[in-house]
């Protein structure tokens, strides 16, 4: 009896230890690869002249698909900035996803829209489409507005995929600010001789406290709001350390919903967005990869480290918490749906590294963290805590996490240097010092809650679909960026 108990306790302690070391090492490796990848990108693109692509007829054409739901307040401004992007051939498809406000009316009035007879190019199943509108004014020739029955973000994007006429589809949130040069920069990888590029994304940055005029970003500042500021760090870490490394390794599983480009043909063939998950952006990339591998096609998914898309981050605990819980739910849904990939050598790097990484270090990390903490508390209450060891461990874990965060600030400083003010950078660094103590526990709580929502929702799945649309949709209008969550490290027990 004693032996077994002793063995079990030892086992738990050791496995938590091994897990933690593994996660630390994994993030260190990612950081190193990111550094290489970013410096490579910077060197390659230092002297790039984007002006030749502007006038070239050879540049691939792009369809921008942006679903709008109850955006009446800002829709005119947003669409105008989408129409003013610098690019030769592109169209803007706004999908009015059954808005209850005057989104469509405003668009019709402002852009002088009239109904036109346009048939979809493709037939992904979607909710009913009421009509397609185009402007009578030739100046707005790029604009198409599609009115449809409410069906959620994924459903709206599928309508966009059906109607898109160009080769590359950019799925974007209508309310985010897209850099004028974004299309020029993001299209370059599509034109470089490589394997077929099926999906691509760019860094999404946080626009809180930035000066915005007429849908354009004038000045960049670190958000005043603490919560938004911490998210800046999270995004830097996720994009500059996580995604860049995965992009280099060609193991990227996620292109953010706020700004993601897809090869239209492959996206359609793979079946478009899945309307049954809240993590449709990740799900699509995984499915497209799966499609390519199963059909024996060469492909790649890459990331551009340029900050090309700016979005308003939630600055209240409630909204942010909901967002994070939803991301967790989306991650679980995607991972479970494609569990076939898990350690399946057929899927190569995707199956052996990317998927397991997400499974162990994204989904399970908060669980291990909570479990480790509870386990330690029990031991401590029984009087077996070895406090000196505990505190040392805590110190190393926190200092490691902070090191990584500061490193990502350094990457940002070296690469794109968005935050010009010295005050800004100091503020960010100070925020990094307290993040682990103040903010990190919240993210763990939110993601555990997401797990709870997922598992409790499974039982009443059917009901959720029927009643959940309106709510789901409002949610989906919030920013959709998955971040590689915080370095999930936890106090170990000694």
């Amino acid at each position, binding site marked *: *009896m004693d032996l077994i108990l002793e063995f079990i306790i030892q086992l738990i302690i050791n496995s938590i230890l091994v897990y933690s070391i593994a996660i630390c090492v994994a993030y260190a490796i990612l950081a190193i690869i990111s550094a290489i990848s970013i410096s490579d990108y910077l060197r390659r693109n230092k002297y790039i002249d984007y002006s*030749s692509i502007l006038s070239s007829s050879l540049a691939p054409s792009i369809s921008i698909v942006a679903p709008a739901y109850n955006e009446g307040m800002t829709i005119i401004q947003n669409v105008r900035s989408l129409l003013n992007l610098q690019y030769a051939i592109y169209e803007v498809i706004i999908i009015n996803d059954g808005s209850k406000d005057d989104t469509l009316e405003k668009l019709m009035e402002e852009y002088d829209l009239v109904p036109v007879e346009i048939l979809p190019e493709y037939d992904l199943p979607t909710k009913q489409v009421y009509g397609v509108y185009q402007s009578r004014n030739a100046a707005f020739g790029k604009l198409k507005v599609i009115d449809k029955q409410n069906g959620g973000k994924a459903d709206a994007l599928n309508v966009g995929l059906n109607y898109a006429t160009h080769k590359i589809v950019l799925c974007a949130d209508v309310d985010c600010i897209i850099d004028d040069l974004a299309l020029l920069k993001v299209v370059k990888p599509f*034109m*470089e001789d490589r394997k077929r590029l099926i999906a691509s994304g760019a860094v999404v940055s946080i626009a809180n406290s930035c000066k915005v005029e007429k849908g354009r970003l004038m000045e960049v500042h670190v958000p005043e709001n603490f919560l938004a500021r911490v998210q800046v760090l999270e995004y830097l870490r996720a994009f500059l350390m996580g995604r860049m490394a995965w992009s280099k390794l060609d193991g990227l599983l996620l292109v953010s919903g706020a700004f993601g480009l897809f090869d239209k043909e492959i996206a359609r063939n793979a079946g478009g967005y899945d309307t049954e998950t809240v993590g449709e952006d990740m799900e699509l990339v995984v499915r497209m990869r799966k499609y390519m591998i199963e059909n024996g096609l060469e492909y790649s998914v890459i990331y551009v480290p340029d900050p090309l898309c700016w979005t308003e981050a939630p600055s209240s605990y409630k909204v942010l918490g909901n967002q994070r819980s939803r991301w967790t739910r989306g991650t679980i849904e995607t991972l479970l749906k494609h569990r076939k990939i898990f350690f399946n050598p057929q899927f190569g790097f995707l199956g052996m590294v990317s998927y397991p990484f997400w499974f162990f270090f994204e989904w399970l990390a908060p669980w291990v963290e909570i479990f480790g903490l509870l386990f330690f508390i029990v031991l401590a209450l029984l009087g077996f805590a070895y406090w000196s060891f505990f505190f040392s461990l805590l110190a*190393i874990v926190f200092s490691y996490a902070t090191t990584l965060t500061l490193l990502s600030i350094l990457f940002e*400083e*070296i690469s794109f240097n968005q935050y010009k003010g*010295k005050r800004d950078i100091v503020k960010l660094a100070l925020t990094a010092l307290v993040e682990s103590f103040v903010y990190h526990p919240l993210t763990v709580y939110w993601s555990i809650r997401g797990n709870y929502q997922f598992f409790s929702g499974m039982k009443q799945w059917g009901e959720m679909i029927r009643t959940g649309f309106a709510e789901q949709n409002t949610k989906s209008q919030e920013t959709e960026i998955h971040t590689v969550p915080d370095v999930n490290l936890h106090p170990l027990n000694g």
Partner: protein
Amino acid sequence: MRNNTTLKGKFYLLYKQIECRKGFLKGVFIAAFILSLLFSLLHPSIVKGGVALKKHKVARKETLYSISTKYHVSVSEILKANNLNLSSKIDTGLLLIIPSTQPSNVDRGNTIIYHTVAKKETLFKIATKYGTTPNNIIQLNKLTGNNLEVGVTLIVGYKNNQITQPLNEAVVLPQKDNTGDGNSVSNTATEVADKIVGLGEPDKGKNRQVEEKDPNGGRTHEVKTRAPQDDPRNKKGEYRNLGDYFKYSSLPLLILRIGAILFILAIVIIAVVILTMRTNKTIDDNKKQQFDKFFQDLVAQIIFTDKENETDEFEEEFTHEQAKLIEEFEREFLTIPFFRQVAIDRLIEVYKSLSGLAAKRVENLYYEFDLVNDTLRKIKSARWEEKVRGIREVEQMHLRQAYKQVYGLINHPNEMLRYEAQLAVLSLRRARHLSFLEKLDTPLSAWQHMNLVAKLKKIPNYDVRNLNKLLDSPNPSVNVFAIRMIQDFNMVKNVPEVQRMLDHPNEDVKVAAIKTLSYLHNDKSILKLLSAYPGESERVQSEILKYIGVTGSGEHGGMLRQLIGSSNTNISHAAQEALALMSYQPLDELNLLLDSKTTESTKALPESGNI
């Protein structure tokens, strides 16, 4: 006047630098915060809590006394620490907390002197050795007789004060064999804790290891304790110095702490690096500002002033004032590599926006300042980014003397480098601009293709006479390039050559040819395509269908309609698209066809190859 501004600029620079240091102050505060964290880690209080507490599991035949001698603690202290009294049973397997090595009846200023009994040593010998009496030793160690066991450690006295006060308790509890197993669970848990503590101990050489058989469980357990004579700590349980701390604290703990310290140092270093980069950037910007002021003057003086000998373009000499200005500029800035690069960048910028005489003057300046050598040196550099930079400068300043060198790089294995070289070659050539492509054996990306076209179109009177030659190139991407160029320049008379390319084995070439043919209409194309159709791959077939759709020749509508029913979805989609593209085709008919397709799908229509 100019001197004055320079001086002022220097002061400004200095002021800016000091101002930048303010950022450092903040950095120092952060550093102080982190350092204080670091020191709190090292603080002895943490150390004491961790190592001072010892536990001992009672083995068979062990008595309180034997334990007390082992750890050099008095029996009463052990009893007190474990809430026991003299009548309590000390069972085998019982876990005892051993209080720290410092006996309570010894004044804080005193240190115990120990002696380990060697062979043939007697009480008397030991007593004389330490200047005390045998009785004293008997009392201090609560011995029952004069017999000494070899290897037993004895307390022989205290430093400073000679002992005056004998210890009261001289009790030896008789050992009892007992099999109390009541609290085995907590015992085991404690054991685990013990082991964890044990983990914390350093190398075995410094430990005394006691292994005893437990008759009840029949298993071995270990209790590791630090031998007192090795304990490097003073009476307060602190290490005497940092060296001892690192030497004696447990290994995993040590690793953790060193790790934490390293990471904290890394944080500080990264923070400093970030701030330094910031500061350097500001300093560079200021330097550039200062440079620009002077530079603008210079450019205005030299390039935009009319001179009497304007007609004499090639023999142009600088006037006396200008020469002076140039000299000053060179002395002030061009001795510093940083400013040389800034000068190159600025001159190129100016050069780009100028033409004719003014541009010539800028070129002269480039030579005058000997910046050409900088550029040529870059091309010879081992680092590819430097090379790219050099090639760019060559191209932008039209430094024709570097043509040969650059030409040698057009097939370089580094993609960026060879693309840059190709662009430079293209713009340095005087005629037959694209002929270098005949020598190309590396692939061209769509991106490079676009850049080449853009560059070519910027050249006045560009010359593309040799496009047909490129069609014969063994490099498929050059073929594709040539075919697209034919389309781009509307070279209708080259259509037969493009039609010829339909027999090319490479799929990309075929697809490009079909696209171009649909753009440059020719009656013979369709026949050629239709005859080629059956043997082609799916991709090429789709492209041919698209051709039929775009060119919209009505007689092939039937074929398309038939193909909509194809079991191959891609072909079917392509046929649908083509049909939709045909302008004569009413949309209703397409819809009808689509509807009928669903019903007809059971009837397998002939495969695409049978038309």
